[in-house]
């Protein structure tokens, strides 16, 4: 009986909350560069956005554990996910760990491609996360002005 109440509560809370938090944007860092007076008049605004989709094992574990009974498959999966997170994602983190080290490495080249022969100014570098239930989108975004 208790189990049923528990599951009903979770379904009643987690699912609507998932919709509420749908596409929630989390800002981690914002850093500015120099600002050039000419930029506002002669420049072309450019924006680079690179992202990587990943899974939050901790969140997945919590949901699975709550949905399943103590000996259910969901619970076993939950424990596995939680163990993976504690032992293999141990250390400082910004957002949720991703499985591709290089997703943000191309940003300087992309800026150079978007502003060939010119220079950039008024840049702001933003590190953010687009958070969906269990699934997360880790984003690096740079807004700047290209002057030629």
């Amino acid at each position: 009986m208790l189990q049923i109440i528990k599951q009903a509560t979770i379904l009643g809370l987690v699912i609507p909350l998932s919709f509420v938090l749908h596409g929630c944007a989390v800002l981690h860092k914002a850093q500015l560069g120099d600002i050039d007076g000419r930029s506002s008049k002669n420049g072309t605004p450019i924006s680079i956005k690179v992202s990587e989709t990943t899974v939050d094992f901790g969140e997945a574990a919590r949901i699975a554990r709550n949905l399943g009974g103590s000996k259910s498959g969901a619970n076993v999966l939950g424990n596995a996910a939680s163990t993976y997170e504690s032992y293999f994602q141990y250390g400082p983190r910004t957002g949720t760990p991703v499985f591709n080290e290089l997703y943000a490495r191309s940003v300087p080249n992309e800026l150079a491609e978007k502003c060939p022969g010119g220079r950039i100014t008024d840049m702001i570098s933003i590190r953010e996360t687009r958070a969906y239930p269990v699934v997360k989108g880790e984003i690096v975004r740079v807004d700047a002005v290209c002057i030629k």
Partner: protein
Amino acid sequence: MSKIKMGVISTVIGAMLITSGCTYTRAISQTNVPSERGKVVEASVERMMFLGIAFDNDDVPKLVEKLRDKCPNGAIRGILTKDLSTSYLIVIVRKTIAQGYCIKENLAADDADTNLKAAELETEAKI
């Protein structure tokens, strides 16, 4: 509810109460500092988030415009950015502050290549 659960909950609530109003630094950055440091300009963007929930961060890039408006006829150099986050129980306020020096644009250009020219002249002198 078990004693452990109660303990955990009360600890969490206690921590929330204690840390309410505390400001944490998330990131900083500093650009090259010019020699002319006469006019200081500062701008910031702030957002209050219930349960820390926000659906976009589009207000953050506006910081550049805000700072630019403070120095309409010049360039801003030596910008120090402070990215802060303050928690008030169930409300989180994130604030990004940028502070720099408003200088004449030709000076900004000079600052960048003065020493390059100087080095060239010194090499000429040696020859």
